[in-house]
């Protein structure tokens, strides 16, 4: 039984918290609220209360376990408490006790049913003139309150998702490796250019790419919100889909998706007959694109052309602290001639997006973003490079609203550009 199924699986984590409060200094959420119930120390206490029966499910209690899921606390905890596990386990326990809240239910249905999601996105794309008005800085802002804050800028949806634009197999004659590319939702529906860049970078590194059309959302938004049963189904379906392909690796271009394959599926399917082993095998084969082209199928450095641009790099939480991919994106950036790279003061501080958290806690999320933008502005860079569609969406939102006039690209896009 993993911590997703049973809160007592994290009892040891809960007891190893010495209550020193060091996590306060790292937690972006606490920095905005100053409330002990939004920082690891307090919420570990709440998890203990759920475990001992001292507190029962209430919507308020469930809300106390929500946060950016940015792992900054994990990285700072001197006792090595796996705080992410405690929080995810507590969220799952809350859903078990109290059911899935309406918003999350909607999301779960949409994410589970890929056709529906495709339809949903397409409908929105077609009907966007009705609901969304172009924002002066590019992108669209909702004409009507769509449940989001009015000022939020939503990037235009691609009229045709990436997976509908490409063939399922992009072979390279005499390829050294064969990989499957898991696009993830954002790189499919919102940023197809990232997906194209990933395929380009891979093929130019002598790697054949499969892009199975049947893939769907990785399920991370559900796991993060404690909706375990649906996530588990999605995990099974992906294990079935990707295990049979005879691939050398599964490549992702998003830390959150990567973590699903590398860690979450393994835990979700722990002990599941016919799945547990295959989930582990798939996990061992999962790479972020940056990691893959630096360490497994190295890109051809001699082929890089000059790209004159002043750039900085924002490290996505789930890519850096989650997958441990910290050096590679910087290595790629530094290897491209002409790029003037000015690091952020705090490259790995959360941008505040955190998926659905940014809808439900828009103000907190935006304040966190503003700190990131101040850091960005301080570098004087005209372009922010990052490795995650959600971070990109968040950064673009803030850049548009603050009128900063900067661009955001995925690391793979810059690499593909330099390889062109």
């Amino acid at each position, binding site marked *: 039984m993993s911590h997703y199924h049973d809160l007592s699986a994290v009892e040891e984590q809960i007891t190893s918290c010495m209550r020193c409060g060091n996590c306060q200094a790292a937690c972006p959420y606490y920095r905005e609220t100053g409330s002990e119930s939004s920082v690891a120390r307090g919420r570990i206490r*709440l998890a203990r209360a759920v475990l001992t029966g001292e*507190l029962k499910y209430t919507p308020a209690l469930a809300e106390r376990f929500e946060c950016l899921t940015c792992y900054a606390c994990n990285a700072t905890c001197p006792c090595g408490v796996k705080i992410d596990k405690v929080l995810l386990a507590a969220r799952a326990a809350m859903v078990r006790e109290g059911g899935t809240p309406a918003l999350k239910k909607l999301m779960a249905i949409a994410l589970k049913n890929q056709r529906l999601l495709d339809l949903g996105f397409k409908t929105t794309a077609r009907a966007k003139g009705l609901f969304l008005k172009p924002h002066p800085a590019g992108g669209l802002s909702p004409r009507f309150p769509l449940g989001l804050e009015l000022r939020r800028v939503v990037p235009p949806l691609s009229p045709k998702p990436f997976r509908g634009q490409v063939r399922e197999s992009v072979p390279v004659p005499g390829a050294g490796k064969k990989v499957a590319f898991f696009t993830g939702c954002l790189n499919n529906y919102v940023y197809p250019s990232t997906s194209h860049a990933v395929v380009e970078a891979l093929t130019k590194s002598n790697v054949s790419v499969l892009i199975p059309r049947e893939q769907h959302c990785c399920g991370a938004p559900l796991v993060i919100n404690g909706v375990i049963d649906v996530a588990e189904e999605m995990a099974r379906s992906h294990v079935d889909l990707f295990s049979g392909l005879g691939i050398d690796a599964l490549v992702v271009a998003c830390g959150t998706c990567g973590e699903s394959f590398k860690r979450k599926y393994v835990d979700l399917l722990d002990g599941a007959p016919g799945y547990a082993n295959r989930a582990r095998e798939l996990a061992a084969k999962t790479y972020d694109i940056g990691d893959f082209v630096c360490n497994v199928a190295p890109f051809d450095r001699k082929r890089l052309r000059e790209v004159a641009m002043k750039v900085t790099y924002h490290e996505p939480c789930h890519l850096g602290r989650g997958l441990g991919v910290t050096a590679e994106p910087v290595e790629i950036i530094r290897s491209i001639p002409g790029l003037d790279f000015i690091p952020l003061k705090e490259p790995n501080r959360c941008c505040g997006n955190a998926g659905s958290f940014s809808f439900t806690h828009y103000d907190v999320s935006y304040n966190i973003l503003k700190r990131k933008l101040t850091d960005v502005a301080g570098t004087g860079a005209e372009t922010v490079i990052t490795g995650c569609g959600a971070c990109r969406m968040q950064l673009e939102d803030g850049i548009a609203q603050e009128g900063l006039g900067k661009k955001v690209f995925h690391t793979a896009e810059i690499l593909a550009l330099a390889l062109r």
Partner: protein
Amino acid sequence: MSLTKAILDLRAILGKENVVTAKEDLLCYSFDATAGMPEHLPDVLVTPLSVKQVAEVVKVANRYKLPVYPRGSGTNLSGGTVPIRGGIVLSLLKMNKILEVDPENFVAIVQPGVIIQTLNTTVAAYGLIYPPDPGSMATATMGGSVAECSGGLRGLKYGVTRDYVMGLEVVLANGDVVRFGGKTVKNVTAYDMVRLFTGSEGTLGIITEIIVRLIPAPEARKTMLASFKDLTSAGNSILGIIQSKVIPATMEIMDRVTMETVENHAHVGLPTGAEAILLVEVDGIPEVVRREAATVRKVITRNGGTVKAAADDRERDQLWAARRAALPALAQKRPTTILEDATVPRSKITDMLLAIQDIGRRYKLTIGAFGHAGDGNLHPTILTDARDSEEMERVHQAVDEIFKAALAMGGTLSGEHGIGMAKARYLPWEFGEKGVQLLQKIKEALDPGCILNPGKLIPRGEGQV
């Protein structure tokens, strides 16, 4: 219900969002960083934004006879913020502005919710530092550290919090607001009220503004790690270094138990097999730093120790990381960690280390000792399990003996963590009956209704004569 009414009054003063009554939140304020303390839920948590609001809250507390528990970041190690009698937890975290940095007078004026590190980052732009640096400086507030008179790692050379507090604004128990001290280096006007409130642990008044002294940042520093085959040579080195007229910024000690635990936990490359290590840092003008570092090295070698100097910032950070890992590493070993704070005159440091070892042996307990050796401020840390009542009985006896030993050597119960709930019962040992009565009179004069942090510091009567 008077509590319901009190909450309505508080809402009227602070607005709904700054008055919290949900149990899901209050539970997170029922404890602090102190291990082995009872927990207690407050009735309400308030977060005022101004001194006026603090004063109004105190008046409400008086009206409804509710205790007030001031709170910064809740990182104290003496149960100081546990709302043991319920009532109001008053968080100062939203009063977190640096009001002024005055580079001409080397002074800063801050609100109590400013984090110590934030002040240091801000004044660094002026080439200045605020020296008190408790291990918790990235989290602890200025208000909390003034209320505890926190020490830190640089105490040996630079002193402790009280040496830097020049003036205070305080809300008294009746809601009056008073100010003492100021920006002048000299000030002998009347009693030294600033010092009375510094270290008063939230029992005499609520600090709402602090004027602190700053000093120029040292230009250079050198960090060294010395290892010893026995405690006595480590102790002799500590004395030897100071006798050769070198006052390091830091002189930290770790005994074998602590070192081995840290090494097992963090693998930072500490010399296991040694009986004790010293972490020594000298700082100041580059030429002086070089000379002092050479002296330190000589003294340590003369006492049979081996020295390794940090070659660069990365190595320095590693050494410091090892020191900072001491408590967390010890805390991982057994379920309960009892951290003490007994302090002796520097010349008695070896005796105290040996006494702690002896007490550990006699009561069959694992005690790690580490701490600010240059200050004589040790943190004997007993690793135990609160669920084992037989062992806990021995723990209590051992703690008693540690305090007795420290006092017999001319030391004190607490060097920097304060009395709070954890050490209140030992107060008569150090102060005597008459001394405790004097404390009670002071408390009675300033807080006759005993509403400020009741259950802390003053034993039993808590000020009610």
